[in-house]
């Protein structure tokens, strides 16, 4: 029966050739580890967000009078609605962590250098868009936490000279967070941002398929040679086939992702839903402590620490631009083995340490 189905498909789309060409013959480098699969994990996490988001969308009403109530209905009355809501909520946070880890891995392997600059830029753009998706998603349940977090995050751009007020005003659709903000954030969260994320994702994956996975210079010394002057795909003839070897590694990491997700759902279901997240948004009642989500704590604390708001926001913008175009800042031919580049390694570790320090500081300040 199974064989007949496969044969039926084979005759029509040439499944065997497809699998051979794109999975068995597509080789991954010898040094590909579990860490090399984080990009794939982020892709699965994004698909999970899309699926759970669509499930929520079936019952969610993007209107200030109904949004909170519709979320309460989803959580309490729709069968397994709580599960979709919690997966979407927790998954939205883990996906950020996965992308950060993926970027750290790519940075440490110096895989962003020529000819992979566009791959890095498209990935970094995706990261920034995912962060925007998180910001816009926070407001949708119309609870106290989301409402006041949005009030804080939509104020930050106003510190920018000349264009700042305009950006803040555009984000909110007025002077304060209102129903217009909700309708804007809703359209950005469910349509505009996902379309751009998927677009960059396709570009990112196509580039990886076209160029081949990057080799670790620490494992394959030949990989540290000068970058090619014309297009050359890394065939990794000595490497492992994508299927089944690398696919099993990917599957393991995806399973690990789900394990972490359900660990949080079991033991800390409210980790990203504080008590105020169960109270309808009230513009007249400011919660005692308003903090942005954990991934925004570092820039938030930086802006708070620096007495001059313009300087604070400018630093955050400059950091984001440097992150986005990093391959062009590290363009000189200094090799790809980070062990031989102590300055680059130190820079990376210092930035990471500062980010962790400012995040913890922001959490307790």
């Amino acid at each position: 029966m199974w064989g007949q189905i496969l044969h039926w498909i084979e005759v029509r789309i040439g499944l065997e050739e497809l699998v051979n060409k794109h999975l068995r013959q597509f080789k991954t480098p010898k040094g590909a580890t579990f860490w090399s699969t984080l990009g794939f994990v982020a892709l699965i996490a994004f698909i999970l967000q899309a699926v759970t988001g669509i499930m929520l969308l079936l019952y969610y009403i993007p209107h200030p009078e109904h949004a909170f109530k519709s979320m309460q209905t989803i959580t309490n009355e729709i069968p397994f609605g709580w599960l979709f809501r919690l997966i979407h909520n927790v998954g939205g946070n883990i996906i950020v962590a996965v992308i950060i880890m993926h970027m750290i891995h790519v940075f440490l392997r110096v895989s962003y250098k020529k000819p992979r600059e566009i791959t890095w830029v498209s990935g970094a753009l995706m990261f920034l868009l995912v962060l925007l998706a998180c910001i816009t998603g926070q407001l949708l349940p119309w609870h106290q936490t989301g409402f006041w977090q949005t009030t804080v995050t939509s104020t930050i751009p106003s510190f920018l000279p000349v264009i700042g007020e305009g950006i803040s005003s555009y984000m909110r659709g007025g002077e304060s967070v209102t129903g217009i903000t909700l309708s804007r954030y809703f359209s950005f969260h469910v349509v505009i941002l996902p379309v751009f994320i998927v677009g960059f994702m396709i570009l990112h994956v196509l580039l990886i398929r076209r160029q081949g996975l990057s080799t670790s210079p620490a494992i394959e010394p030949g990989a540290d040679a000068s970058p090619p002057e014309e297009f050359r795909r890394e065939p990794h003839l000595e490497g492992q086939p994508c299927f089944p070897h690398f696919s099993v590694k990917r599957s393991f990491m995806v399973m690990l992702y789900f394990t972490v997700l359900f660990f949080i759902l079991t033991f800390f279901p409210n980790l990203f839903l504080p008590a105020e997240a169960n109270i309808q948004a009230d513009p007249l009642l400011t919660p005692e402590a308003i903090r942005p989500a954990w991934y925004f704590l570092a820039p938030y604390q930086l802006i708070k620490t620096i007495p001059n708001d313009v300087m604070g926001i400018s630093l955050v913008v400059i950091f984001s631009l440097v992150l986005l175009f990093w391959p062009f800042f590290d363009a000189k031919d200094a090799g790809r083995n980070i062990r031989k580049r102590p300055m680059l390694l130190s820079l990376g570790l210092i930035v990471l340490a500062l980010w962790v320090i400012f995040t913890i500081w922001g959490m307790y300040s």
Partner: protein
Amino acid sequence: MMRYLIIPVVLLIAVVSTGLSLASYRETFEREFMLSPWAIAKGEISACIQCHTSDSMDSKMQQLVQEWRASWHAKNNVSCHDCHGGAPEDASMSMSHQRGFSGTPNDKDIPAFCGTCHIAIKDNYLQSGHGKTFLDTGEGPSCVNCHGSHDIQQASMDIISEQFCSHCHTYERAKEMKQALFMVESKLNTINTDLKRLKVFGIATDRQEKAYFRNHAGFRTLFHSIDVDAVREKSSDYTQNLEIIEGEIRESFKQLAFRRNFSAYLFLVFIGLSIVVYLLSKSYEQKSG
């Protein structure tokens, strides 16, 4: 070459004209959106607070705002003008009697002052020994003697204490009342705590909260009659009502337990799958040497 230019130009004209035609609709739509009550985010705009916290006020008057901010009234959005009247949004008219400002009530007017909101409690109080004594002699406990004025906290059984009651009479009768209240009060406290816990976990408790509030308010009203026999007689009715709420709370906790167990089950499934896939991955690595 020209045809390549025509396409973007036509698209640009189409986008701009659509945008312009939608602009007026959008303007009307947004104006209506903004005018809705939920759309306007007002801050703490109160002439009373601004003036009473300014340096022109003496420290005693400034202290009133501090006390109110820490009070149960403040936590429930009951502001100065809700009790004292006036126009908090307009500094020049904030203390105008034409705008309903009544200022500090005379002692004899206190029950009516608080009774503006706490109507049933006022009625029961005025029929009680406390109320009658207060009306007849102008002495005896009024609302503020037990609850305070600006620093009002959530009422609890602790108010009935030897320290308070023995100011006017022996504690024996008050103690008897406290014992009569104990069962229902304990249930009310437990339900209140449980509802807060459920709310933290995202359980919708609106219906139970309303039922709790109804019973809570009713029982508190009854108790202001300081009639021990009436409290004993009606306690069973309140107990029955509260047991219904307790039953619903138990169901909600069962639902929470199901959610935790279901998540735990999926957690274990994925641990198992992770181990299997990891071993599979290692076996492939060994095979390929």
